[in-house]
């Protein structure tokens, strides 16, 4: 593929407003969207605001909406577009704009604070912690999360209804809650939070989050649905409620 010109439309502006601006720039072989954004920044718009760190799909910093699709810019190859296709890059819509492609994602850091911490059980008699690989596989899937917040961005509970934000943790934190609830060593109880403050009931399992996850975590099937089942077992199963009267709290 020889070097060719592309037409990029990048959103420029801040909380007070903005617009899409047009840039034309040469694209070399193998480039990803983030490379093109950097090339524009270096040559045509030194002050173009964009977040990035590792540029290898490991840190989850460069999330944006590329031609309307929530993506990591560093993992979106330019040759996945049609020749001549205009490529439009917008900031994530669910979060307030700071500047250009950078959004205020502090919502997520606030939600992280509200989750009760990991609390390990006592050690084994020999002072070790024994866990078996087959018992941690499902939690290790959740630990793959790179906190790109694309799942939060695409979730219509908060994307279309910002007023739900105080009452809804979002898919990223359902994954986090599931990872704690299913951790073989954890002894904390978060079921009330999951049912009430985290707003699990708002999710009607449309799987939008799962579709955009760059780590291919089965957010809906492996995290959200099992959490919903646990909530049902705890709060709505009449037999469990009856037993609950007589037995000590269990996870």
């Amino acid at each position, binding site marked *: 593929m020889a070097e060719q010109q592309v037409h990029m439309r990048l959103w420029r502006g801040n909380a007070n407003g903005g617009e899409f601006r047009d840039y034309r720039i040469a694209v070399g072989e193998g*480039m990803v969207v983030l490379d093109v954004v950097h090339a524009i920044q270096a040559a045509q718009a030194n*002050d173009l605001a964009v*977040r*990035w760190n*590792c540029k290898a799909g490991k*840190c989850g910093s460069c999330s944006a909406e590329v031609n309307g699709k929530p993506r990591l810019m560093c993992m979106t190859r330019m040759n996945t577009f049609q020749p001549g296709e205009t490529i439009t890059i917008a900031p994530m819509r669910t979060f307030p704009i700071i500047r250009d492609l950078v959004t205020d994602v502090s919502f997520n850091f606030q939600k992280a604070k509200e989750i009760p911490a990991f609390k390990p059980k006592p050690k084994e008699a020999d002072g070790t912690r024994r866990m078996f690989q087959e018992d941690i596989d499902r939690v290790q899937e959740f630990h793959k999360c790179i906190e790109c917040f694309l799942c939060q961005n695409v979730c219509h509970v908060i994307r279309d209804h910002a007023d739900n934000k105080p009452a809804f943790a979002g898919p990223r934190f359902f994954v986090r809650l599931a990872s704690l609830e299913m951790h073989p060593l954890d002894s904390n109880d978060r079921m009330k939070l999951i049912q009430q403050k985290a707003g699990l009931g708002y999710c009607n399992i449309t799987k939008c989050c799962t579709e955009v996850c760059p780590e291919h975590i089965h957010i809906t099937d492996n995290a959200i649905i099992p959490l919903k089942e646990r909530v049902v077992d705890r709060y709505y199963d009449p037999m469990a409620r009856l037993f609950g009267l007589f037995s000590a709290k269990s996870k």
Partner: protein
Amino acid sequence: MAQEKYETHEYDVIVIGAGGAGLRAAVEASAQGAKTALVCKSLLGKAHTVMAEGGIAAAMGNVYPEDNWKVHFRDTMRGGKLLNNWRMAQIHAQEAPDRVLELEEWGALFDRTKEGLILQRDFGGHRYARLAHVGDRTGLEMIRTLQQHAVHKGIDVYMECNLQRLLTDGGKIAGAFGYWRESGKFILFKCKAVVLATGGGGKAWKVTSNSWEYTGDGVTMAADAGADLMDMEFMQFHPTGMVWPPSVRGILVTEGVRGDGGTLKNAKGERFMFNYIPEFFKAETAETEKEADAWYEDKQNRRTPDLLPRDEVARAINSEVKAGRGTPHGGVFLDIASRRDADYIKRRLPSMYHQFKELADVDITKDAMEVGPTCHYAMGGVRVDADTTAATVPGLFAAGEVAAGLHGANRLGGNSLSDLLVFGRRAGLYAAEYAKAFQGSLSVNSDQISACARALLAPFESKGSENPYTIHADLQECMQNLVGIIRVESELKQALETIERLKERTKNVKVEGNMQYNPGWHLALDLHSLLTFSEAATLAAIERKESRGGHTRDDYPNTDARFAKVNIVVRQKNGAMTLSQEPLPEMPDELKSLLEEKK
């Protein structure tokens, strides 16, 4: 734009940098009762640690019970060509297992042995399988565990906040000054102690595995405050980084590709490593392709030269490319496709398969990879006390890649993550102790603050027209070509001249736009630290007239006994850098005997 307003915060300890070392330091300082702030340039959880793959080296003995700290100490010292600070290497080897187990207490889930304990894997230079790991994403597990632990401990975190200068009072640390990236507004911290955990400066090189954050900030702030730097000549260039396409240039390709049967070839298809077997390794290295290939199946044969030590392989690749036998994109070929079947490759190297497929459109089960050396890790940095991590300025501490000493002339894989935990904890501990014991009062000097504020604003008021991105690119070109894997005095001196010219040009940098989240402005300010780091690295490289570890001199190709017992120390006085050769601390006899033991 004469803005001199700023917000002020007061703490006992501030930790700058929120990778593994900074997070661990903040957790410890806070646990010791010090009022602690964690200040980082990116969002929390995005620091360079997140990219680490292989694992955390710790002699836990879960796979090989005969492993212990003494063997780990020995491996680390020999890997560092005995230039390591022996006490740091000892502490590191002794404490790493506890630091790994502590992560488990905080929720980390490492891969397990059949007995349910933490699994450990083999790595270069380590005698036993020693690396605690989570697949090939160990850094992510480590940073997330520490991040969540720190958040639950209620530590104040200042994200996307870039500190630029340390403030001193009577030669002691009194605070730090910088700006919020989001708003551009200035921020002052008054504190008794600062922990630097800012990582290295690999972004001064063009082909690098390092992220944008690696601009040498910590080294520069320390030098500007009068602290000693040490071992700045030692940069680790990993022999196999991706070279094409540009989007992934420098990203690491694991040594495991060669371990599993991959071989290096030049553009003519020749397995050139057979032409680069040094005398020192001749007796143990295969001389023919047949013998080398047989080694994989039968260790009675001698080892393939593709698996010579990293500096040898990097040097060989460099020579092939310089001789015009490189690939179209300036690397060599790493071929496993023609040597192993597709299922084997996908099973053994899943992340390499994925990385090349997604980013390079290369199916490594069908085609060769293009690879070349990539700037990877700074062994040198701020000179610290081995036990306390104290720098030579009172109140200043440093841990992780920004600190010098543990790794000597060359770092072993896996020893970085353990370094972050062991010395991050110690930095937090001793910074808190220093702050608690501090008597008297500190004041921040308003002249220092004004000078700093003026420097931060200068790029907006400049009459010049230099583009900061162009200067950065020119510096990367200079360091890549003149202070790279192979150095020679004439080129190093040429690099110094170029750095001087770039310093002059930096005075004429002009940024457009305003102070709100302006990457052009941020880069303009980072040029100071990139240039300081580069100058110190180049000066030290001129001074060490020998080849050792991560420092290879074409004009002095051998190790030299005169340099075997000294560190090169760099100091900055009145804006000029001076050099001195200072003796290594004397190692106790009982540790010396560990080095001599065959097993």
